[in-house]
């Protein structure tokens, strides 16, 4: 079926079978491979994207059902431009090792802040537990979220900073 996905502010027209999940549509059809496949079962969080600012597991969403604005990791900062505060914080806190879960962590972290769940390390640990990191950068991820949160508060809404 023919669908239009709005991804990082741009419309993408594509023809997909109804059973194609958003993750595979992003990776295989559109070429946005920053969104990662880690389990295909909604268990690991590596495929997290934002839809209208809400964090969503893209392996669990049929592409044809998506009507909102999708933000992927590629949409957080213009190429060559300044990084999103959360991306910058992940580098500065060394909140990643292999980097495979990182796009999902960062998008989840941005939503975590906007949800109001980044008030303390305790809270961040709890609300970031849906994103597994096998390298176990967890303490640094918590620090990155706490570092970026006040910088993000200056932005107006859940999607304004992350949509280019």
């Amino acid at each position, binding site marked *: 079926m023919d669908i239009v996905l709005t991804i990082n502010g741009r419309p993408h027209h594509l023809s997909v*079978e109804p*059973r*194609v999940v958003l993750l*595979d549509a992003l*990776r*295989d059809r559109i*070429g*946005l*491979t*920053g*969104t*990662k*496949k*880690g*389990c*295909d*079962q909604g*268990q*690991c969080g*590596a495929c997290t994207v934002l839809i209208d600012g809400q964090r969503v597991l893209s392996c669990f969403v049929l592409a044809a059902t998506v009507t909102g604005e999708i933000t*992927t*990791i*590629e949409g*957080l*900062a213009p*190429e060559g431009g300044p*990084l999103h505060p959360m*991306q*910058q914080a*992940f*580098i*500065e806190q*060394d909140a*990643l*090792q*292999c*980097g*495979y*879960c*990182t*796009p999902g962590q*960062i998008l989840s972290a941005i939503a975590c802040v906007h949800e109001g769940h980044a008030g303390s390390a305790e809270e*961040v*640990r*709890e609300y*970031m*537990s849906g*994103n*597994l*990191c*096998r*390298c*176990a*950068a*967890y*303490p*640094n*991820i*918590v620090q990155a979220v706490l570092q970026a949160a006040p910088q993000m508060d200056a932005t107006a809404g859940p999607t304004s900073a992350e949509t280019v």
Partner: protein
Amino acid sequence: MTIQGPIRPQPFSRIGKPTPRIDGAAKVTGRALYPSDESVPHAAHAFLVTSPIARGRVAGFDLGDARAVPGFLDFLCHENVGGQAKPPKQMAGGETTTTMESDRIWHDGQIIGVVLADSFEAAREAAFKVRIQTEAEPPSATFGSAGTTEEQREDEQKEDFAVGDAEMALAAAPVMLDAWYETPTQHHNAIELFTTTCAWNGRQLTIWEPSQFVYGLRGNVAQQLGIEPADIRVVSKFVGGAFGSKGGATARTAWIAIAARRLGRPVKLVATRDQGFTIATYRAETRHHLRLGANGEGRLTAVSHEGWEVTSRPSFYNVSGTETTARMYAAPNILTRVAVVHADRNTPGFMRAPPEQPYMFPLECAMDELAARLGIDPIELRRRNEPARDPVTGLAFSGRHLMTCFDRGAAEFGWNRRNAQPASMRDGDWLVGLGCAASTYTANIAASTARVTLRPDGQAQVRLAGHDIGTGAYTVVAITAADRLGLPVGQVTVEMGDTEYPPAALAAGSSHTASITHAVVRACDALLAQIATAATASNAGAFAGREPATLSLRDGHLVAPDDSSESLADAVGRISAGAVEAYAENVPDGMPADAIGKLYQGQLPILRGQKRVDMTAYSFGAQFVEVRIHARTREIRVPRMLGAFSAGTILNPTTARSQLMGGMIWGLGSALLEKTEIDQRAARYTNDNIAEYHIAVNADVRRVDVMMLPEPDGAVNPLGIKGIGELGIVGVNAAVANAVFHATGQRVRRLPIRIEDLL
């Protein structure tokens, strides 16, 4: 040109300073391309069909429904392609289970077919519609299952020790500790799945696959397919976690290459999470019989460590961590033995700290038990048994600072507030326990090569087929080259993970940083030699007629001891207006001269710290853990961990800290969470997903402190690098178990420790 002889010492200016990852920006923006991210136009999709039984044979396939799926292209199995590939060679030697070479089924989840289709969805649907007929035999799952066979591990690759007479010493010991311990099956579960994409261009095969050893994978696939290694390119620029699982070649790669050849079109496989449990390796379950004899002061008179490890039917894979436990403490009588138990399972393989993680658990628990029995502080007990030399070979240790780690760690952790009495510390409803254990890992180094180019504008590029599996290897290579070339780190780019570059060794066994940086230093020195020779041979310029060896590169200039200098542009420009390039090989002292030739063929020439003839080389650490156990529910929490490590030169404290911390959290998961459950009747993994195979999540991890103690060890290798990838995990499981004992008085000798163990 290549410079031989010793690497000249040089004061470091960039090594040891915290440096952000140079690949950080690529990873936080999604631009880092993992192998399954690479754009391969017109690729068909593969989906594996795996065995539903653990033992028997494939009797046939009914493909009617599968072929009817729109987009279905092909089905591969033993009947049509079985003769086209040989099994991959095992890095640890010996045989392994086959896959589609024949109708034989060795284990549940074995690859028995590959469906190819135009889309991932069609391939998946068709694979589920393949009807498999099998002839099943009753399988044997694990220790204690009917039909397993046990054999003593031979002395080929791993050594057993019999120093003195341990049996007699144990019989005569005033104090004897005799206990059995168990560690469970565990799977790596890197977040990146096992993926393979293959494309042919005439005779040339390109493989995109996450790998810890691209030359090894290339050599292996060449051997499997009977083609020349030079006709294969392996690309693995980023690896989404490996932990040992992507070190050796697995069967899947050759079948995907064959599939692509049959279709005349690239083929992409992204194996599913559950398939990852059976198409690659894992950490096998182990059992241990540990006996310690001691006198009344706690001085060991005997150490006896016997281990049993599960493996597949044809493989004798084993980790034999007794090679390390025999060396931990000064005992005059030492006995070790290891047996393998063959079951109907996939072949196990390397997983983070393969020997030490399971084998240090019993030893470090037993030391804690002995300390409790004697009323001696567990750190003091270790001090009393600190060996002056390697207890089994008599060789000197290349830096052994175990007690420094314990003392510094204890001070920072607040060990002195521990009441030695078990179940004596409490905070409201929570029982508090403090435990400690030793960590150690062999300091290994392998032969490696590197190529460095330098442009007149001061931009340097390092290329080698090394691997950054999350360790920070890209960054330490840049730091090393920047240091040697006198440039800012930002002016060095690093390209790795591709057999188009000169070979580097396997990224595993805490060896990769030592292996690759020495090759990088040699390449930089060879480059400097070219520049210096040109400068001194010139009739003009500041250095005409001087001795080349006196010149060095510093801050973008070629400089002499008297501080006379010229710009890099002038110095490099004397040779080329484009760039100067140097290639170098590093064969560590004590390795055979043919090591580089073997490396090019995809073999692994590695010098292990416990096999050296000049010294015994290990890193050391002390692990401290605080557990809190709820008095009524017995819920176990770990609010605090501290590791103090002595591991030689730390090139980049930023990434090193992360790696050690990650290792410690792996240890935490290993102690309390991780276990692959096995259906005893079907010999099948039952929790083959990461919702039910529990790895630590963010909320499981509280405070983790990492101390890296300065340790110049010039003896182990010229740069003094001993490795850290495995050191962080070792001993944590025992430290947790010891803390649980301290909190409750209950000694649990089987991992993982769960609520039900403490009821």
